[in-house]
């Protein structure tokens, strides 16, 4: 005599179905907990300075100057085509690059960049990022290091 829980077409029995459902639920719950654990370690409050900051009026950056804002980790350049900001954090492992005659040099693992921040040697995987510059209502320039612009983006401000 056939077990009444058995499906007539020979498919999954009720017992197997329930067992599988319970098993799948346990796996899903486990994955949910894992996701929660991973999310737990991603801190929401950051004890860091804002990544967008004022650097002063355009007059402070006359044409032909290069200014290093060490605590902000950027270089601000000004040439005939405009003002632009380049990161001084090496894209390899995060050391701070310094200026040389031909561009930038990283002290940690020897990455070299040209004046436009493009990699010309060493292990850095990509060029130094250029950051967006906007002008605030009071006339001072604002650099946002969370927003990159294509290398070569230079703007005049007055």
């Amino acid at each position, binding site marked *: 005599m056939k077990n009444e829980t058995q499906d007539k077409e020979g498919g999954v029995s009720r017992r197997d179905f329930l067992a599988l459902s319970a098993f799948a639920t346990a796996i899903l719950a486990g994955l949910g907990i894992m996701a929660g654990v*991973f999310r737990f370690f991603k801190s929401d409050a950051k004890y860091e300075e804002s990544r967008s900051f004022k650097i002063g009026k355009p007059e402070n950056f006359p044409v032909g100057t290069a200014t290093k804002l060490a605590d902000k980790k950027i270089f601000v350049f000004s040439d005939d085509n405009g003002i632009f900001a380049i990161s001084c954090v090496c894209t390899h*492992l995060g050391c701070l690059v310094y200026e040389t005659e031909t561009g930038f040099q990283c002290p940690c693992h020897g990455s070299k960049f040209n004046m436009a921040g493009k990699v010309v040697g060493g292990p850095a995987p990509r060029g130094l990022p250029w950051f967006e510059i906007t002008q605030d209502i009071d006339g001072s320039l604002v650099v946002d290091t969370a927003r990159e612009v294509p290398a070569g983006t230079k703007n005049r401000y007055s």
Partner: protein
Amino acid sequence: MNETDQTGLSKFAGNVKGLANTFIGSVFRNGKPTSDKTRASAVFNNFFLHIQGVKTHINTLRPSYTLGLGLITFFLLVIVVASGVFLMVYYNPSVENAYQSVKNINQVVFAGKVSRNVHKWAGEGMIVFLFLHMARVFFTGSYKAGREFNWVVGIVLLVLTFALNLSGYLLPWDQLSYWALVIVANIMQSPKELTDSLGLTKYFDVGTYTGNLFLGGSIPTKESLNRVYLFHVMVLPMVIYVVVGLHFWRIRKDGGMTKPDLFNTKASDMGIMVQPKKSGGIFPTHKTYGLMELARGKTPAVDKDVENTVMSWPNLLIAELAVLMFTLAGTLIYSYYMDAPLKEFANPLIPENPAKAPWYFLGLQELLSYSAFMGGTGLPGLALLGLALIPYLDREQDNVGVWFTSKMGKRIALESMVISIIVIIAMLAFAVNFGWLRNWFPEIPQLVITFVNPGTIWVGFMMLWSLCTIRRTGSTRMGAMALFVMFLVSYLILTYFATDMRGPNWDFYWSKSQWPIH
């Protein structure tokens, strides 16, 4: 008659008089170890000694076989834990106070400096002796014959030891700590190098997540120090205790230390050797097998190889005690003369030039200077995976317990050593003189450099050479021998090269004295 006459008080007085003896008797249930039987139960009935057998094979006691390396590593761990507790008394894991409190330990606290030195050098000593122990186990073929998994456990211990050393030097919040935090976070972020060049970062940004996981943000802050401290003093030690316990337990369960099949005793062994009895004795030759033995099929030290053993008490214990004394003395003497380094207070605005990791990571740092992803994640991962898989890819079971397996093994080891020295020096010289792909093709995509750099080429060469050796000799053990020797040689040479020949800007110098003054 006498007993009934005894009053309650005199019974009590008698108990007081015998207190010391009854207490000691309750701790050590058996009397003085005067016969083999009591010597056996002294080991067997003692919680701390029972992880050892009551009898030990003479080969295990031969200093020329084990060299005591694993035991030295374990004792160094004990020393590290003890000295670490002392340091925790005065160390304060906060960005403001960490550096000051380490200075306090170094300069003010009674015996603080020597405690810190002991902690530092015993920790680094663990790395040295772990490698030596691994080499001993490898060259005597002791990862075979049922011990495959314990080799893997050993690799896990290697990783844990590196992680403990790394998290340790992040704590003083000096220049080394700060810039190591930056560099390690960027290494953890380096999968981005791969996802960036494949255009996947938008969908699957695992690099940023792992970097943030480590720092608790995007730059080293008090959150980062908190996390590293938690790992160094709590999470990693707890894990390493459990894994060390597992490692020791498996030694016994896997059949004890390896020994050569053709084992010859020396004349000097006769005095202490236990002659096997044909009937009775501790390991009867006609033992009735219990369910456990039947289930496992093979049980160590039952019904075989009862020859050539000595009582563990006192022979093994004296040997172990001697190793402990030498380890302790060595650590103390070294720590008395050598001071653990402490650099200037962390300065987020000025990286050191050159920014060098402690010596045991400098080989990796050299690989890092070719590609962050490969040097920091890809190649170390591959090396660890390769090491862990050795016992499963080399299944030959002959000559276990013989140094270098055979005459051919010695030849292959020597040959691989010479070849790897030549190839790796030639490769370094090439990279130093002519630069690498980007110097010749400035427009080359990053993906090509990630996969084709001196590090990956070297690893590729090691694997090919080892496959050739297998083909040439028809033996997988010889292939493993070639691979392992080349791994050790490259670790040594890269470490030496990066320590002594890399200067400011990671440029090449013949020696430190040629570094430019700045």
